[in-house]
């Protein structure tokens, strides 16, 4: 599946002219990009840039206002369930059942993803040990600390082996040890199972170290994309962080110059909205 772009690259994630509005606010404003098979692709951007909204649309949780989304060649709008079989996700916000034990959370995930019982039991014990939760497997999750819950979320995402793994700011609130384990695991499944990884992060060093290609998103638009070196070359800077600041800085200036009329329109809409 997937369309062949150039000689070797098979496109796994294909996003075209994606738009999502929340009343008058445009969270994602006409973005397009592709991610190839086996690639690690990072979305870098400030808060409210549209990173999570894009991930929500890619994982079938939100419906776009316009544009098309394909994963592994399948259109999300026509066959969401077929798409869901192909990805795994670590959410930015908690998504565990606090009333169940760690083990039960893993089990129910295994059932959802049709992981055979034997493999489920083996993988669960491996993963819970790796993330230091094995001793706590019979404990109710709501008693866990924030860090433990986060670790369980991550362990759970690796229970099944997806074709595409989405990581929405996965390292938020993680200690360096767990952070390290997470990236080792991500790289491992990326190399051995050719899993395509799409991640969002605030941390330049992580994006720089892990991602092969980076898109910098700001104000719902992609400001630039390419390898870390390409982004640095494009901006004439010597580090990704400087390139990022140069890009997000300039895009803000561009926007305020071009869109003052748009802003007036938005204001008008806002007032109109209030009158109703």
């Amino acid at each position, binding site marked *: 599946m997937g369309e062949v772009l150039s000689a070797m690259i098979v496109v796994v994630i294909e996003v075209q002219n994606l738009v999502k509005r929340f009343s008058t606010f445009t969270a994602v404003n006409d973005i397009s990009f592709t991610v190839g098979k086996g690639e690690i692709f990072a979305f870098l951007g400030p808060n409210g840039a549209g990173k999570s909204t894009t991930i929500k649309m890619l994982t079938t*949780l939100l419906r776009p206002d316009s544009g098309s989304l394909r994963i592994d060649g399948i259109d999300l709008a026509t066959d969401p369930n*077929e798409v869901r079989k192909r990805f795994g996700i670590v*959410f930015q*916000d908690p*998504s565990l059942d606090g009333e*169940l034990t760690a083990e039960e959370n893993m*089990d129910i995930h295994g*059932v*959802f*993803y049709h992981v055979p019982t034997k493999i489920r039991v083996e993988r669960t014990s491996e993963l819970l040990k790796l993330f230091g939760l094995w001793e706590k497997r019979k404990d109710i999750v709501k008693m866990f600390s924030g860090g433990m819950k986060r670790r369980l979320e991550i362990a759970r995402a690796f229970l099944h082996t997806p074709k595409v793994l989405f990581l929405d700011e996965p390292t938020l609130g993680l200690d360096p040890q767990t952070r390290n384990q997470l990236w080792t695991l991500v790289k491992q499944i990326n190399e051995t199972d050719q899993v395509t990884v799409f991640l969002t992060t605030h941390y330049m060093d992580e994006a720089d170290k892990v991602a092969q290609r980076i898109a910098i998103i700001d104000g719902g638009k992609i400001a630039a994309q390419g390898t870390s070196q390409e982004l640095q070359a494009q901006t004439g800077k010597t580090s990704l962080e400087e390139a990022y600041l140069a890009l997000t800085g300039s895009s803000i200036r561009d926007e305020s110059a071009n869109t003052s009329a748009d802003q007036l329109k938005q204001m008008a809409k806002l007032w109109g909205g209030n009158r109703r």
Partner: protein
Amino acid sequence: MIAVIHALWLRELKRYMRSRVQIVAALGQPVLYLLALGFGLGPVFQKAGEGNYIQFVAPGIIAMTVLFSSVFSGMGLLWDRQFGFLRETLVAPVPRIQIMFGRTLGAATVATCQGMLVAVIAFLAGFRVSSPVALLAGIGVVLLIALLFSALGTAVGSALENMQGFQIVMNFVVMPLFFLSGALFPLTNLPLAMNIATRLDPFAYGVDALRTVLIGVTHFGLALDLAVLFVGTVILLWIGSRLFARIQV
């Protein structure tokens, strides 16, 4: 398919069994109704020639427990939305109708358990059924009521975005369903408007069905009762699955 429905059903049950405090707290209201109304209105009821009020009201209170518990468990969806587990279920490669079915069956089972606890308390308060067969038939009817209103709870929970709507649903849907059902009073000789309202209340047929099988007193007739419960369940499951499939988080 069965595995997913079973897993979600079991999840509801585990959550129920682990919330002992809530189980007891949820028994407070029906017990109060049963004892205060049962013994308080008993003498008047007797004088009016209607017989033993505890016998009359117990099926109503059991049905009420099932109604409240079903809607409440069905709306547990809102908690899952709040605490994030809903996201985990919505990205799973499982047809959403299976998720909705599993949850609804779980909610119905929980409500049935809660109804049976109140039945035990009613027995201690002096309520008697005619035979063990009546008891079994009663459990069947309770399950039907539970299914219908769990489906309602799931449908409402799918349509609402947060807990703020919960109180509105309780006050403007669940309480009218209860008070117009004849759970507390006989449906005979009512004013016209009230008569129409009770006939439009699906819960009235649930109460009537339970009273019919438990104590042999019927108003609408068991066949009509069961037909309404069954058709109502199918319609609400259908509406619920449509609404559930549209959820965005």
